[in-house]
């Protein structure tokens, strides 16, 4: 298990910081945004138990994220909002 997992982790680093063809570079530049969106969607798990509380908490947290652009503040306020929505729902 460990070997297989490590193989997936090291494989991507083969490029060693060199630049790759333009199309690949453009593709890789899109990966972070796509990855964050996918991971966000996975964590929100819309439709499963408690997703209403998550969605309702995520909305004000999104405002905080866009307005202040500080990760720790988004996390702290988000958890507070979530605690509130869990109490209410």
């Amino acid at each position: 298990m460990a070997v297989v997992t490590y193989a997936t982790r090291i494989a991507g680093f083969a490029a060693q910081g060199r630049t790759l063809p333009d199309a690949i570079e453009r593709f890789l530049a899109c990966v972070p945004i796509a990855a964050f969106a996918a991971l966000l969607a996975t964590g929100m798990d819309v439709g499963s138990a408690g997703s209403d509380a998550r969605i309702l908490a995520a909305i004000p947290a999104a405002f905080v994220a866009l307005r202040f652009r500080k990760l720790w503040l988004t996390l702290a306020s988000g958890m507070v909002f979530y605690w509130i929505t869990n109490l209410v729902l």
Partner: protein
Amino acid sequence: MERDTTLTSRALDPDTTTRPDTYATGVRAGLVTVGPLLLAVSPFSVAMAVAAHTAGFNPLETVMMSAFVFAGAAQMAAISLYAGGAGILTIVLTTLLINLRHIIYGLSLDRHLPVDARPPRPVLAFLLIDESYGLAVAHRAPKTRPDAFYLGVSLGMYVTFVLFTGLGAIFASLIPEIDRIGLDFIFPLVFMGLLLPLLSGARKIAIALVSGALTMILLQVLDPGVAILLAILGGATIGTMWKENS
């Protein structure tokens, strides 16, 4: 064509490799940034250790799995499969599928690290997970070395993960059903906090929407690891093909 330079290779920027006194600062910054996440990782690690105990793993096996594999989702899947009587081949294949997205992370993160990354790439690669990738790739502070920052984040996660797996495994028989008080919510919060500031322009919003929608659809029929991988590929492809009017 105006090239989007927001995520250009930092390996090409000489400043990041000629400031030897910022390595410790970078590690510290990484540790500080990952701090809030560790609050959620600890109960997850404990819960996973309890699940492992229930499935029949002894504490040493459980801790070693965390120490050598260091992949929560894959470990949970492996534990469930093992408990269900699955064979070793199934478990290994499932682990591979769940972790395939690490290849994309490696490719994407590689250009952000200096050519002479300390510790070297093979070591950094071992610690690669969703959160360390996310935090490292989004980190913008010009003074800190990205490899030092990544190390700080990763060490925080790794030590917490293994430590709490151990604690959970040791006390597994004494703990009733774990109530994680919804601390898991911090994970989607992190990725939302990383995502939103990046969404400037229609193309980037489109990437996020496509990837998010694909994820939600695919989660209905596929394992999360595979769903995430395919959604990333889909979203990034849309972004690559998108014609910008600039």
